[in-house]
């Protein structure tokens, strides 16, 4: 298995606080890798550090064999790696139409055939041409998240970083978005790194997952291990219990 994304001893600190404390992962090409943990566990920071939105102080990052430093990312990097954020209400420009939103990455990367690409991208996420000239406030949460996914996919990346892509959505809409992401992954042979606090979602979407807490990786297990309860960390057990609903003691 060649690794698409390789992270070694990554450290991110904010003042004296270590948000990521020597984290290492190897994620194979075409793999879907999940990261779970509570708020403050460093799971989002990890994605942001990979995407270049947060600088890492120590450690190394390599994407498809190319090494990247703490802060700087070149254009080529963003052709390979794209990110979808948690809050579809905050991640789309409120004064740009869907057309303008999708045009932006194409313009930055100087791609041709703009019109056809935008139409295809919208089609792929299940939004018809009727959505092309709408503003984001005219869309529902699920539709916005589809636009965000279209914006990430329009550059034809190889790796998609997904930061809680469905936690702001209703359960029924969540199912639609998860299906959409799975389909896109199958069609394009994408590599997913998906962050969530919901073990159910992660076990559905991912083959392997890491449990994080306090900036460290508690353990890394295959998704099937959840089913058979083959995990060792106490914290994983706690997360597992939480995903099963309330129990009266």
């Amino acid at each position, binding site marked *: 298995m060649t690794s698409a994304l390789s992270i070694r001893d990554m450290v991110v600190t904010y003042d004296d606080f270590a948000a990521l404390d020597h984290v290492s992962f190897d994620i194979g090409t075409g793999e879907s890798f999940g990261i779970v943990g509570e708020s403050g566990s460093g799971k989002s920071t990890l994605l942001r550090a990979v995407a270049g939105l947060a600088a890492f102080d120590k450690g190394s990052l390599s994407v498809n064999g190319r090494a990247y430093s703490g802060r700087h990312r070149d254009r080529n990097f963003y052709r390979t790696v794209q990110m979808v954020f948690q809050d579809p209400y905050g991640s789309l420009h409120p004064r740009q139409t869907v057309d303008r939103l999708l045009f932006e990455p194409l313009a930055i990367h100087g791609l041709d055939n703009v019109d056809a690409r935008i139409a295809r991208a919208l089609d792929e996420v299940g939004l018809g041409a009727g959505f092309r000239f709408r503003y984001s406030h005219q869309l529902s949460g699920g539709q916005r998240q589809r636009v965000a996914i279209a914006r990430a996919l329009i550059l034809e990346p190889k790796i998609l970083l997904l930061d809680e892509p469905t936690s702001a959505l209703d*359960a*029924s*809409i969540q199912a639609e978005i998860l299906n959409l992401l799975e389909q896109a992954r199958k069609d394009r042979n994408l590599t997913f790194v998906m962050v969530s606090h*919901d073990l*159910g979602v992660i*076990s*559905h979407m991912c083959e392997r997952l890491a449990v994080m807490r306090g900036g460290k990786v508690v353990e890394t297990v295959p998704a099937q291990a959840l089913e058979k309860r083959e995990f060792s960390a106490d914290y994983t057990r706690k997360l597992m219990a939480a*995903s099963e609903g309330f129990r009266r003691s």
Partner: protein
Amino acid sequence: MKMGNVHPQKSGPLLTVEDLRVTFPTRTGEVNAVRGVSFTLGRERLGIVGESGSGKSQTGRAIMGLTPGHAKITAKKLAFHDRDLLTMSARERRDLRGKKVAMILQDPKYSLNPVMTIGRQIVETLQSHESVSGSEAKKRALAMLEAVQIRDPERVYGLYPHEVSGGMGQRVMIAMMLICGPELLIADEPTSALDVTVQLEVLAILDKLVAERGMGLIFVSHDLRLVSSFCDRVLVMYAGKVVEELPSADLSSAKHPYTQGLLNCLPKIGSDRHPLPVLERKPEWSL
């Protein structure tokens, strides 16, 4: 540390809702958020489940009297014990709110006053409904903070809301809402803003207090699984109407396709369903 909140058992239901309608006038016509909801509530835990826009929160708010002023509320009957909530004066309603009927909102970050210490907020609630001395009020506030399992109540009493975590903030919210010993508690997504591991702790505290004090609870949430594990009875709402009512234990034998759809679309550990079944909305559900 009993607070003498034992209510005399009155006969009849705690709350009667019959054909409740909430309508918002907008520039493009009327929006019917709640369209004829009926139920009665005793001293039990009732869950109201639905997606965003199903009218579940507006139902809770109408009972609480927190519907925005421009909205229209009608009902054949909306009564707390035998007191009609709709014809009640604003003053009477205010007396009831916080004292007999209390509400816990979703996010303690927004529902607590950011410029007032936690202790003062709890004391304010208490003193606006009961004439108690300052020292007595503080004593009761501290006892209440202890009841929601805050380890160092003296310290938390003097903190501002931004200085505590989300889970702690929600416990403070529960403490504040229960200090007057309400008979009915409406919890609108009380744990949705919290971490999964903290959710269960807060729910356990809520559960214990509701049981101890014999309150009626309305638990409003979008999370069908959570609600069914917590409540005795569940109302499922769609497009402003109750489409199904059933005991939580019988959730798996739900008849309405919407309820079944909501249950099925959740990814579960150990079930390999690709793609996930999605909800096919039928127009006749909202008729």
